[in-house]
């Protein structure tokens, strides 16, 4: 659709949105930038520090560790959730009451406030009162998320897969529904195998929704806060402390305005960079495909 009209009056339509988003995005961001170069001692006592906080933060080993954990976590989450979500979307019934029922059932985990998700899993995995912890103990598996870092990681990944795979599945499901039946008929006439149908019809048609799914999943997994916080408090030790939690502890808990603001900016820039790389690669892939397919 490249037949857009050039018209600068379109700005009038964008303006209300711009004012609102600027209020909730730009003003706070300016405050953050302001703090990041100052040492705030009190309401009216602060002095300029330049890039000192940035240097401190970049050299902080605890933050580097949190950053490494964060990257690892996001990668694991994406490699599990995206294929699983596609698979589930392919299994879902196409129409009728069953389709509605399945859709409602699988969206349930998405509708629970994030800290409640943490509480649910905290109960669920407890050895004494939780079904999963109890089951594992009955099977003779020694499992303790407050003591063992490996168990805590496994639980957080399982929890995130439980919580977010439905979003991927839902997006893919609606992507699949938009493929015209004629495509499948053509494939049947050609006696295409199931794999070929998936590879050459379904997957290309899913690209658009997958872009949304991958970006949303990446961004949210990078910002994960409430679930691990409630589940393990970042422990044992700091083995499940992710970036957002380090930041919140620093800003709210310790009131270190300067360092936490510098940290915020570094954090924001990293997310921006990674998302930009994601976004442009995917958009390029899409463009190539469109020009090849002549769509």
């Amino acid at each position, binding site marked *: 659709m490249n037949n857009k009209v050039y018209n600068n009056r379109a700005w009038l339509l964008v303006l209300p949105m711009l004012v609102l988003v600027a209020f909730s995005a730009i003003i706070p961001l300016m405050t953050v930038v302001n703090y990041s170069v100052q040492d705030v001692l009190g309401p009216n006592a602060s002095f300029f520090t330049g890039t000192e906080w940035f240097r401190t933060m970049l050299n902080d080993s605890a933050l580097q560790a949190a950053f490494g954990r964060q990257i690892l976590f996001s990668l694991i989450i994406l490699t599990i959730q995206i294929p699983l979500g596609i698979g589930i979307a392919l299994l879902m019934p196409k129409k009728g009451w069953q389709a509605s029922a399945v859709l409602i059932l699988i969206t349930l985990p998405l509708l629970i406030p994030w800290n409640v998700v943490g509480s649910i899993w905290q109960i669920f995995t407890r050895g004494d009162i939780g079904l999963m912890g109890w089951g594992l103990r009955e099977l003779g598996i020694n499992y303790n998320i407050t003591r063992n870092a490996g168990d805590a990681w496994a639980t957080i990944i399982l929890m995130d897969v439980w919580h977010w795979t439905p979003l991927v599945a839902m997006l893919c499901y609606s992507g699949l529904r938009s493929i015209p039946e004629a495509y499948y008929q053509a494939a049947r006439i050609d006696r295409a195998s199931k794999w070929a149908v998936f590879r050459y019809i379904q997957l290309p048609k899913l690209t658009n929704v997958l872009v949304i799914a991958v970006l949303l999943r990446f961004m949210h997994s990078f910002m994960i*806060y409430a679930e691990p916080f409630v589940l393990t408090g970042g422990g044992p030790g700091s083995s499940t402390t992710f970036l957002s939690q380090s930041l919140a502890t620093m800003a709210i808990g310790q009131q270190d305005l300067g360092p936490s603001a510098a940290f915020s900016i570094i954090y924001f820039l990293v997310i921006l960079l990674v998302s930009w790389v994601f976004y442009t690669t995917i958009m390029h892939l899409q463009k190539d495909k469109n020009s090849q397919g002549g769509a």
Partner: protein
Amino acid sequence: MTYQLENTQQGEKYNTIFSKVPAAERRKRNSRSRLRKRVLLGIYIVLLMLPLYWLLNMSLQTNSEILGSMTLWPQNLTFDNYIGIFTNPSWYMGYVNSIMYVVMNMIITMLVALPAAYAFSRYKFIGDKHLFFWLLTNLMAPPAVFLLPYFQLYYSVGLFDTHIAVAMAHCLFNIPLAIWILEGFMSSVPKEIDETAYIDGYSFPKFFVKIFIPMISSGIGVVLFFLFMFSWVELLLARTLTATDAQPIGMIMTRTSTASGIDWGTLAAAGMLTIVPGILVVYFVRNHIAKGFALGRT
């Protein structure tokens, strides 16, 4: 061009002409593969429901039973936990607060996102691409980054601890998402429709409300679901911007943990109730979600 052959019969005919596999055998294979699909999906849904079942199970037990022995279902069924929530204003007002700011957020977001998405899908203008990417960056902004500035900003304009403050704060990620999805849906509506409407003498607002919005209604359904979902579950900003009057239910639930231990039953019941409004929303938009997310660019 989305035409559909009157398919099943036609497809069956092609199959009989072109396939070497006899019809009876093919039907058997089909039904077997369908059965396998159902079983796999069934297993997934059971696993998905287990934690929720456990929550429901706990919400129907007394605390002594929860902490006592391990039971797979409530031995002495009790609704006291739910009754406790519905009779205590400090509890049920949490749901009211949450619903209020979510609805406000949905209204505000839709009002500004619809025209903006229309502009992005129909016009080129100075800086449109940059503006669009900037919008997406807001979707990527981690709420933790904005906690402190938000607190100060809303405090200084006197909006602290009001529903509108949370609704506005959630606009940060909801408006970009709404514009992103709506733009896709709007681009799939042919431009000729706009032009025809103008020739027929429709003014822009009349065209927009009477013709255009109904055409993208399934997109609006999908967007409303997302707006509801993300605003309903977000708590980091909601918690920071509220103290008592507008506190979301997720925060009120933390009260169950007191010096004398955690009130597991009430916690579980409150958790179950947080899902209910979501089920209603999904129920209303389910057909829109299923109808398509074509997003126009295919």
